[in-house]
């Protein structure tokens, strides 16, 4: 309706013969052209995102041989399994601990990098970004070699301090610790670079005003730095939470589920159940459980960002 009105207005103003105007309007409206320009992207998303999502919804309602519709049978079966609840707990522990430590390390290191003079910053930034640049599957292999039970370089070093050999990937606690450590190592540089950019965008006058008012460094961080970085912290945390929650390669390579399934996450367990034990419907079911949990996290974290508009 609105389109028609607009076109009539244009028709009056241009005052050309009727037929030509119709054609010109078709081309000049540009909405059609814009639609065709985005069409490849839309097709890509439909084919590679929407279709698989709905296909996995469909898969989750089949029985193991994928011949019969069982409705929510897979879900009720999962709820009765102890391993499933263990995986839920482990995924939450893994994601929350890893993201907290990544954010902390990123925040602290960003401050240190921000402190040193400009010329040297680039060198340090480059050095600290290395873990993020190496493909995680490769760097996890290096970690695997560092954790290796018989040739472990860490245990070799620790033996000088009289600390006995630690079963890095053999013991429940240490296996979880190692997996989280590798994830923190891989993810912290991302936080570092985001927080460094945020720190640089905080105007210096605020700090000067604060020091004139006699604020100490903690008050400066609490009342200036954190509020100014708030949106970036929220978005980075959400993004990293999603990626960490869905982590696959690190756990798969380091422990592949670990001692007695104690390091399984949703993604690795879904792989184990769905592909390796060839119960694809159940695997699809497991992986679908990531959706509601991540949706809740997204709502909680992004609620504030939307309210505050585009400050960041």
């Amino acid at each position: 309706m609105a389109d028609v009105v607009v076109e009539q207005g244009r028709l009056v103003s241009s005052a050309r013969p009727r037929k030509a105007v119709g054609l010109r309007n078709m081309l000049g409206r540009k909405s059609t052209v814009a639609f065709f320009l985005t069409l490849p992207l839309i097709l890509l998303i439909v084919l590679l995102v929407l279709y698989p999502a709905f296909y996995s919804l469909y898969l989750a309602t089949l029985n193991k041989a994928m011949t019969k519709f069982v409705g929510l049978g897979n879900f009720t079966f999962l709820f009765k399994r102890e391993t499933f609840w263990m995986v839920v707990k482990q995924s939450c522990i893994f994601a929350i601990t890893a993201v907290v430590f990544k954010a902390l390390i990123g925040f602290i290191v960003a401050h240190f990098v921000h402190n040193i003079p400009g010329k040297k910053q680039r060198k340090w930034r480059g050095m600290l970004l290395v873990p993020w640049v190496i493909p995680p599957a490769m760097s996890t292999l290096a970690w695997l070699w560092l954790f290796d039970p018989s040739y472990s370089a860490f245990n070799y070093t620790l033996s000088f301090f009289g600390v006995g050999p630690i079963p890095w990937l053999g013991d429940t606690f240490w296996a979880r610790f190692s997996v989280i450590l590798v994830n923190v190592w891989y993810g912290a540089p991302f936080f570092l670079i985001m927080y460094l950019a945020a720190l640089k965008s905080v105007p210096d006058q605020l700090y000067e005003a604060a020091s004139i008012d006699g604020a100490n460094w903690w008050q400066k961080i609490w009342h200036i730095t954190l509020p100014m970085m708030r949106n970036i912290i929220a978005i980075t945390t959400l993004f990293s939470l999603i990626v960490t929650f869905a982590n696959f390669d690190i756990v798969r390579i380091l422990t592949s589920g670990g001692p007695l399934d104690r390091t399984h996450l949703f993604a690795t367990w879904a792989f184990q159940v769905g592909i390796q034990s060839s119960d694809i419907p159940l695997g699809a079911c497991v992986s679908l459980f990531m959706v509601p949990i991540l949706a809740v996290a997204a709502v909680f974290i992004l609620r504030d960002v939307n309210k505050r508009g585009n400050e960041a």
Partner: protein
Amino acid sequence: MSTLAIDKAGPTRKLGSMSRDRAWALRWSYFFLILFAIFFLTPPVYMLITSLKSSAEISAATNPWWVFHPTLSNYVELLSSNQFLRFFWNSSIISIVVVIVTMLISIPAAFALARMKFWARPRSRPASSSPT
């Protein structure tokens, strides 16, 4: 202790103490940056060290953090194996094609979303899309 007393005693000293504070902050920054750099760089460096070792040296229980008889034989073996060259070629082809296809799809879409008007958003009308 004494610096604190001087600090409070005279405002003329204030500037000196501030620059001294900054120098210490800088030193601490470097100290912790080095610690974090060690944490971040250990696996890649260890990978490099191990790549220079022969299998015999790896299984001998020497200091794993250092290579005593460096050898390039691993690299030579890799670069002369047809299989590895094949993989290398595959990686290059995949990355080049992926970049090209991504560009072809995303550049028009980005332009259309940012600079042109859609049915869904009638109000925002950038200058470039205004009808002549």
